[in-house]
């Protein structure tokens, strides 16, 4: 089997995650979708590193994970405080990005 299939899978997952971001209103699910996209990227990176035969790809994936962790921490904190302020977890409620 050609490991390129991993890449196809990654692309598929990424696209799914992205559409999820666009479709869902619940902030938490939104976040999950973002995580999904990140993971898709990681898969791609790992695959590439395997193809090129050096570890840098894995290093990057590693960093992605770390950053994702940080992001999730902050993001969830934001969600919590958001939920506290307005008793809802829907992004559409925060439609303040206009005059």
């Amino acid at each position, binding site marked *: 089997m050609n490991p390129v299939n991993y890449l196809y899978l990654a692309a598929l997952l990424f696209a799914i995650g992205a559409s999820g*971001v*666009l479709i869902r*209103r619940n902030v938490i699910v939104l976040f999950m979708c973002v995580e999904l996209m990140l993971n898709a990227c990681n898969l791609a990176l790992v695959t590439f590193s395997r193809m090129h035969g050096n570890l840098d790809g894995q290093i990057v994936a590693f960093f992605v994970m770390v950053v994702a962790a940080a992001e999730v921490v902050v993001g969830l904190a934001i969600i919590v405080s958001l939920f506290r302020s307005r008793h809802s977890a829907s992004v559409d409620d925060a439609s303040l*990005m*206009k*005059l």
Partner: protein
Amino acid sequence: MENLIALLVAAPLLGAAVLLCGGRRLDKTGHWLGTVLAAASFVIGVVLFADMLGKGAEDRALHQHLFSWIPVEGFQADIAFQLDQLSMTFVLLITGVGTLIHIYSIGYMEHDERRRRFFGYLNLFLAAMLILVIADNYLLLYVGWEGVGLASYLLIGFWQHKPSAATAAKKAFLVNRVGDVGLSIAIMLMFTTFGTFAFGPVLEATGDTSEGKLTAIGLMLLLAACGKSAQVPLQSWLGDAMEGPTPVSALIHAATMVTAGVYLIVRSGAIFNGAPDAQLVVAIVGAVTLIFGAIVGCAKDDIKKALAGSTMSQIGYMILAAGLGPIGYAFAIMHLVTHGFFKAGLFLGAGSVMHGMNDEVDMRKYGGLRKYMPVTFITFGLGYLAIIGFPGLSGFFSKDKIIEAAFAKGGTEGWIFGSVALLGAAITAFYMTRVMLMTFFGEKRWQPDAEGREPHPHESPKSMTVPMIVLAVGSVFAGGFFAIGDRFVNWLEPVTGYDHGHSPLSVATVTGATVVALVIGVAVAWGMYGRKPVPAVAPRGSLLTRAARRDLLQDDFNHVVLVRGGEHLTRSLVYVDHSLVDGVVNGTAASVGGLSGRLRKLQNGYARSYAVSMFGGAAVVIAATLLMRAV
């Protein structure tokens, strides 16, 4: 000696400055200061005159260059004065009559709390008028020209609380401005033609240019003269100008300022000599105004307006004379001077009458005043005799000369002008007799005025009568003094030149004709106003009379055509500016605003829809890169 010339102007200018800036503390003494400075200017004039007489005829002209005023490349305007015989004549007339009228005003304006300012304005006028006549170039003359206009504006509107006065003042200034346009265009023409506008160079160089140019310049100068000297078609302001205090009417609107036009034309004689057509137009304007003013004068019941009409017509004589060329110049000035005497006298007399009749101006409410104010009666009577040209008095000589000159012009126009002048003499006799009879003869017709004050006519104080007497003396003897042995002509000859033409008629014939005309005029007037009593209310009168009462409908014409038309024009322009010109601007703004308002709808604030556009953008980018790769 030259350095004295500036002082001529400086004295009254100083007076004006002090009186106008001095404030209330000068209210007590201001009028004296003004009078003294005017007199000082007169004295200086006399000194200069004496000095001038001492010299030979040719080198009498004095010249004083003060400083360079506007130096720009070819355009060199100087503040420089030139005092030759012509200017000298005016200087004496202006300062002399001016001083007298200052004295008169002390009494006349006694009860006016703004008397100080009045004297300030009078001094300002003197200064401006002097600048006008002693300027050595047209631009400086223009300064004086507008200066007198300003002074006349201020003085006509001196009683500004009267709307009529304010309007009259404005009208005078505006009509004069129209004339000024003529003067300024004339100056520009001179500059483009001769490269200068100083009297000397311009008048010498007239030979070097085309007649067309000269005609253009001449006509423009004539326009200016018409404005200042109330000649048809710009005469309409003079009648209303009588709203001003009577001394003002006497000084500005009879003796001096209104004659500036004559001065301008005589001064520019060389130009007109080079442009016969322009000269002819001048003569025609003079002739027309002569008759026009006379007719108006016949119909007015307001004594001052009647006199104003007469002034118009007399200046018509002068302009006519000036339009005759070298034959007439000297006589134009001569009539100007004598007219200065007797018309000023007449106005002062009228003023004194009004003074006695608590400011009633309607002659139909006078009558039989000779018993009550003898001095006024006598002086006024002498003035009257002088103006109608009673043999031996000033008017007789000056007017007679003009009529002769008119005939001497030769050709058909000579005949026409001559007979017009004769006709004018007859009408003059008529309306002046009318004034005389209605005012001083017949039985008294006055009733209590609006406040029920019964007027009790009385003679005016010395300060008023003395100047009247002096002027009366002048109006009796001046003409003779000038005419005997052609003194005046010889005096002016070096400046204006003289050529006494070939009259088809003998001097005696003309004189006889004049006298006949005069007799007829007086007789008709006696028939209409002397024998039967004058009705206290004006009869309806013939069509001509009614027209004449309305200044021959000139004002109505102006009102309908210019004022109304102007109002409509401005109103429509305001609309255009607001809706059209500004409309385009605001329209642009509005359309931009609307567009952005629509675009704003895209910013619905939902994070997810932003995300969609972002994601779509990313997709597009990828597609683009792939396409690049593919190609």
